[in-house]
């Protein structure tokens, strides 16, 4: 067993989670995020929660950072120069010609990350089969180097047409650039992505160059500060595609870490689902501003191989976590046609919901939940005193604007609409993968997740809801469970046959050369499709064991599950994906020990959605829960409250989770 610290920097809070190998204890702590210098918040959390001797015993420090994301959001990164094939300098600006909002006549794309004057062309051309159509003109590269020097460019991205099929020209451009005196970091598209689609690959490569400038110094500085405090272990950075990268790799491939925030919750759910033997589980993370959901099948994270952040496509592995603007802070309003709507606008951390009494006047989901007694009135963590009167005052005007009869009905409406939004998001992630959500368990966490567990169960017709202990901080637990993962991919379009599988082996070997790490488990996946189709499914293969028939059979099974039918057409390989995984420690605990505390037990008046009426219900502290308790009731713990409606029963499971079971259907 090893001691691991995980620190995740969120928009509002920096969460720390510590697993102490000596005691088996899991500890969590929170500090305000310090956006201008995030390492200060990280170090403050370490200083506050981790004694020096413990830090010295710590083997891994797993860090989830938003430094890259913020660089993109704020457009504060390197001054990047881009070198392209002659005729293609505008690919970054032309994009794919579509609009984010198809009904917006005046929609305009955000300005490109590299201005046009810094997008320079060199004469050269490689064909789709990798053959050289036109030799590289070295003078073009030298001229580009002069321009970059004159313009004070920090970093250069090199993206040449079809370089996925033959990277020689890209590599040569980098050499020439160095010879011409350019000393800054250079990003080569075939190393960054290796996949076809020039706009997406260009964008990924430019993002890499843009954020590397910020990420490298930040990580090295943090590493230095931790070592000053006695840390002798390894600093790891979480990936958008699950798992974590070693420091040097994260600094070299920062685009892989852009969106790791929502991944930790899905990862924690995956591990929990595997240990509880839940075949399919739905992660239901209700935070302050959003509802994040992911479908976990057989304990595996759902992966995509292209993501998007602030309108920029990124060709890198991506855990398929869907987000909708329905969280505790989501604002309810009446639209111009008089319907009640919820989100996506949020009250954020400041001023927060009206019931926080910090100047918020707009009604939120939290205000509705408080009004209905779904969360206890009184003081919550952070010392905020929840005011039911402020909540009711904020909700009241909606009655007049929507024609809904009274504040109670408004509050019920806000919760029902928020739950319906969440359920739609869950249907999205399940139906698209050919899974009927009814057979799944809902794992409800995040500050407000356990409040919505029963409502989601009824919306989705699901019978089991699992609430992990310390549900409010459950995401952070995913951090200390991360494995070290590296991946690379290369597009190679050809029919699936014996020769192709041999070629796949060669490509995979060359990809693994870049991913080498002692003790790593190697995994190879293929993007496959029916010949003539565009969209692919990613199928695992066992090199040296599988023949084309075995791969085809696996594809057919996955295709049938996703789309409900099979096709006779021959298969085509599109992309080879190599993943190396170092499992850090199987002994790490699945869940933190149940905490104690969480306010006063007793009874409360709450709204039962099942009964459509107010009712008196018990309030039980989590540690006091014995046997099976029938709803309605509230179960309290320090970080979250579980709302158990009539028709549901709750028990403390031996794993430390609360297990909520639906006794009858509404």
């Amino acid at each position, binding site marked *: 067993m090893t001691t691991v610290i995980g620190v995740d920097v969120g928009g509002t809070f920096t969460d720390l989670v510590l697993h102490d190998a000596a005691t088996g204890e899991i500890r969590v702590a929170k500090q305000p995020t310090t956006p201008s210098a995030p390492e200060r918040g990280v170090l403050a959390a370490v200083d506050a929660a981790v004694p020096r001797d413990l830090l010295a015993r710590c083997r891994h420090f797993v860090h989830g950072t938003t430094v890259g994301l913020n660089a993109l959001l704020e457009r504060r990164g390197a001054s990047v120069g881009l070198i392209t094939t002659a005729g293609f300098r505008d690919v970054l600006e032309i994009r794919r010609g*579509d609009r984010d909002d198809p009904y917006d006549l005046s929609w*305009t794309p955000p300005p490109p990350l590299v201005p046009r004057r810094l997008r320079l062309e060199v004469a050269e051309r490689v*064909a789709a089969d990798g053959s050289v159509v036109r030799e590289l003109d070295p003078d073009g590269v030298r001229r580009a180097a002069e321009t970059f020097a004159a313009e004070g460019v920090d970093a250069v991205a090199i993206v040449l047409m079809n370089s996925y099929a033959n990277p020689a020209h890209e590599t040569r451009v980098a050499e020439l650039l160095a010879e011409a005196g350019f000393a800054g970091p250079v990003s080569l598209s075939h190393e960054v992505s290796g996949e076809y*689609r020039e706009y997406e690959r260009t964008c990924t490569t430019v993002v890499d160059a843009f954020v590397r400038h910020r990420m490298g110094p930040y990580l090295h500085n943090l590493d230095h500060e931790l070592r000053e405090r006695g840390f002798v272990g390894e600093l790891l950075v979480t990936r958008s595609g699950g798992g974590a990268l070693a420091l040097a790799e994260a600094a070299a491939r920062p685009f892989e870490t852009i969106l790791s925030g929502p991944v930790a919750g899905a990862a924690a759910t995956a591990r929990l689902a595997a240990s509880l033997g839940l075949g399919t589980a739905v992660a239901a993370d209700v935070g302050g501003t959003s509802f994040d959901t992911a479908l976990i099948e057989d304990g595996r994270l759902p992966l995509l191989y292209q993501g998007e952040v602030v309108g920029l496509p990124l060709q890198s592995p991506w855990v398929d976590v869907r987000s909708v603007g329905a969280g505790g802070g989501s604002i309810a309003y009446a639209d111009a046609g008089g*319907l009640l709507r919820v989100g996506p606008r949020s009250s954020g951390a400041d001023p927060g919901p009206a019931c926080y009494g910090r100047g918020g006047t707009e009604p939120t989901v939290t205000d509705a939940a408080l009004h209905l007694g779904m969360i206890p009135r009184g003081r919550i963590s952070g010392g905020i005193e929840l005011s039911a009167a402020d909540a009711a005052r904020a909700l009241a005007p909606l009655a007049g604007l929507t024609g809904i009869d009274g504040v109670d009905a408004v509050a019920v409406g806000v919760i029902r609409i928020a739950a319906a939004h969440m359920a739609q998001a869950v249907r999205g992630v399940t139906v698209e993968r050919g899974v009927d959500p009814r057979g799944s368990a809902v794992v409800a966490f995040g500050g407000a997740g356990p409040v919505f567990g029963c409502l989601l169960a009824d919306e989705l017709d699901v019978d089991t809801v699992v609430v992990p202990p310390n549900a409010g901080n459950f995401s952070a637990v995913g951090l200390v469970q991360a494995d070290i993962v590296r991946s690379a991919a290369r597009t190679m379009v050809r029919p699936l046959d014996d020769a192709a599988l041999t070629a796949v082996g060669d490509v995979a070997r060359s990809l693994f050369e870049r991913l080498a790490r002692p003790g790593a488990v190697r995994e190879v996946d293929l993007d496959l499709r029916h010949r003539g189709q565009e969209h692919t499914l990613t199928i695992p293969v066992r090199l040296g064991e599988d023949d084309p028939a075995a791969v085809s059979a696996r594809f057919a099974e996955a295709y049938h599950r996703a789309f409900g039918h099979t096709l006779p057409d021959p298969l085509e390989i599109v992309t080879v994906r190599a993943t190396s995984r170092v499992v850090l420690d199987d002994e790490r605990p699945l869940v933190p020990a149940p905490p104690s505390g969480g306010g006063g037990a007793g009874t409360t008046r709450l709204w039962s959605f099942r009964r459509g009426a107010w009712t008196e219900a018990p309030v039980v502290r989590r540690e006091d829960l014995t046997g099976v308790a029938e709803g309605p009731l509230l179960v309290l713990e320090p970080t979250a409250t579980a709302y158990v409606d009539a028709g549901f029963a709750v028990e403390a499971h031996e794993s430390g989770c609360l297990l909520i079971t639906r006794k009858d259907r509404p």
Partner: protein
Amino acid sequence: MTIVRTRYSEAHPGLGDGADPVTTEIIRQGLNAAADQMKQSLIRTAFSPIIYEALDFAVAFYDADMCMLAQAPTLPAFMGTLGFCVHEAVEGVGGPAALSPGDVILYNDPYGTGSHPQDAAMVVPIFHDDVLVGYSAIKAHWLDIGGKDPYCTDTVDVHQEGTIFPGVKLYDAGRLVSDVYRMILANSRMPEMVIGDINAMVAGARTGAEALAALVRRHGLDTFRRCVARMYAHGEALVRGWFDQLPDGVYRASSVIDSDGVNGTPIPFGVEVVVDGSSVTVDLTDCPDQVGGPVNCPLPSTVAAVRIAVSFLAGAGEQPNEGHFRPLELVTRLGSLFHPVRPAPCFMYGIPSDHAIELILRALAEAVPESVPAASGGDINALVWWGNREATGEPWADGAPHPVGQGASRSADGASALMYISESATRFTPAEVWEARNPWRIERLALAEDSGGPGRHRGGLGLDLSFRVLEDQYLTSGLARTALAPWGMEGGLPGRPNRLTVEYPDGRVEDFSLKTRIFLPKGAVVHLRTGSGGGYGSPGERDPEAVRADLREGYITHEHARRHYPHAL
């Protein structure tokens, strides 16, 4: 001469009065999400790039009265057009009483779909406890279903354009009707692609039908119906609220379509928009009788053009339902360009319909000058290519729309290189994907410097694309707006029109606009120069700093700046 007034009367007036607003909102969201599921299913399983990449399809739900419940955002050009074809498809097989669970109806008659026979619809009736509660419908572009050429710009009647299925059951109570299936395959030049797309459409429509049935089950049929009625009333209220703010009046604009593709003569037409309180009437009777070439616009697409134009202004970013369309009235003349009758050819129906959209907006500029930009490149610049691969003899085909510059507005420069607004959700195919698939090399994919119409705000730049063909092949060019330059507004200057030039290996150079089956010998280069946006306001009023920034980034040249913006130098 018959004047046709198309107006949507309120289904079940008053039914929604008692509906719970919360459940209504939940059902509204549920319908939109279910339509989106249907869309995703189709995108991920379709075989034709024109479906999965160009999103040349529409998916929607209709209620039992054939009012539109929801439509997923795909091509705005198809907005609301499926209602006609659901109606015709159901009538074709004998009316609602002849439907059973498991039926799938195939329908592609251009006068009911509004487009060409390649746009085939699948309609699936949805039952709840044996009661017909609605329909899911998908219309998507098949690569080929007969016709004189895979894509036609020179047809003289609809029968040259493709094989017509006037509402036939492809599945009868869940059983494939193999006679119909074999008819389809026998009539396509690319049967494998069409089979793949049929499977994808049927699977998508069934996925949608199941999602809608689940929604009805969840809420009960009575609640569902009442909430839907209220949802329509809500959509109508949103649009009426916006129309109410328009100054009452009669607004007009006129323009000229380049040619009908056969007879070569320009086609003038005009629009008249009457705003009266919260109702809007669009009159498209000022046009010639139906023409001899394929630029006639069947009524469903005329209706769509009007809805698109108005939705862009008034939709408030909402996915539309039938209620959004109620305040709109359309006046057409039977037998005319915008309401042709059989057998008028209509393969290139998008040309008049797209032109009408921009012209309606232009007419309304007088009422809402802050919302209406100058003209864009004004066309989807469709190119369709096909041939047989040199090495294998295998047939191949591909086709795509291409982006244009957008018009400048009162508040900003126009965006460069976006799909024309009627195809605004469409993405254009990466050159690397094209090169991996087709015998082409893309030699240039660039913004066209100096192309944006000068003005206080500059029009968006058009695109320069060059394709070198590596094997003999054919091309059909569907370009419109090649003669009419995109208009500026308030003193802004016009942008450049669309242009297609073929450079032959023997040095010959020729321009084309609407032209079917251009033979391209190996080594020919096709240059597509798409139109740019018109300028807004006088160029002399352009902020000198903006001119200098354009110079610095190379969007304009010094010569262009000296000519149009001397004040800034």
